[in-house]
């Protein structure tokens, strides 16, 4: 019990310090790294409560993917300069925000601490956590039986998100000219192109064979590259 309490207090301190860092630090990169601290703390608390699978997902998906995505965007856009706290465009926005936050905290703490230490509600009868069964098995069982429709809809959601991200981030270019693509497979096309190039080189007696591989690409809708380069500029 003593070890659990010590772990909890240490992790809670890390979580609170990390979330305070997200709000208070001025450099977005520091904000993202503070967020990682909080996410790891929450993962430790998940482990402490027996949610092992969720702890792993928390570290892999949140700290490994989402925060890295944040860092990519921060560095791609070059917004990693400090943000000034001085300007307040809406009059009294900050005092109002603090008042709202104090209200939220006060209400939830009152609700939590007034009832003592017992959790109301009924214990589960359908999906009880069985100590003999591993956490991931129990979670998979409930995910693929009771929540299978939600699980399937999740895949639709992710597809929509991917399509949305591609649509949002691509620059509107000219439509693809179908006449640009001759008949035959790509391998045939590349082979013909390569044969033509070597023929030309032999005719010219050119000795610079090194740039055969990447030169002479037709500019057919390479929007991703262009936008990346523009953003980097």
């Amino acid at each position, binding site marked *: 019990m003593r070890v659990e309490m010590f772990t909890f207090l240490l992790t809670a301190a890390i979580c609170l310090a990390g979330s305070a860092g997200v709000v208070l630090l001025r450099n977005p990169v520091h904000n993202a790294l503070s967020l990682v601290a909080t996410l790891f703390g929450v993962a430790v608390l998940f482990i402490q409560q027996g949610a092992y699978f969720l702890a792993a997902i928390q570290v892999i998906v949140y700290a490994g993917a989402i925060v890295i995505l944040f860092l990519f965007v921060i560095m791609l856009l070059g917004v990693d300069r400090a943000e000034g706290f001085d300007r307040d465009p809406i009059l009294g926005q900050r005092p109002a925000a603090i008042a709202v936050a104090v209200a939220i905290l006060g209400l939830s703490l009152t609700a*939590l601490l007034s009832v003592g230490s017992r959790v109301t509600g009924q214990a*589960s009868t359908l999906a009880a956590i069985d100590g003999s069964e591993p956490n991931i098995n129990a979670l998979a069982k409930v995910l693929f039986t009771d929540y299978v429709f939600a699980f399937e809809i999740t895949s639709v959601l992710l597809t929509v998100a991917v399509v949305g991200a591609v649509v949002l981030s691509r620059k509107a270019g000219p439509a693809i000219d179908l006449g640009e693509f001759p008949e035959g497979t790509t391998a045939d096309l590349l082979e013909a192109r390569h044969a033509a190039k070597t023929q030309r080189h032999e005719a010219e007696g050119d000795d610079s064979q090194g740039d055969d591989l990447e030169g002479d690409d037709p500019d057919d809708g390479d929007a991703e590259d262009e936008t990346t380069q523009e953003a980097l500029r």
Partner: protein
Amino acid sequence: MLALNETWYLVLAAMIFTIGSLGLLTRKNPLVMFMCVELMLNAVNLTFVTFSKALDDIAGQAIVFFVMVVAAAEVVVGLGIIVAIMRRRQSANADDVSLMRG
């Protein structure tokens, strides 16, 4: 020594949620506002897992799984929107995009 029970976890989650909402209301950089939303989602996830253990019900953890999926999708689309906006204008300020036109 005080015993470690669910109330500790719930109070911690309430604190993280409050800090996240405070940051969402005060910060102006849209990226940092997104991070504060992630903080709030994590606080709610912690609450779900705590009640899942207290009520001995694995369904709470299933809900956390779905929340994580939605958070990932939300971040992808949101960051796409932010990149699209910032390519057009060079300011990292949410107040400058209050007009609904480019």
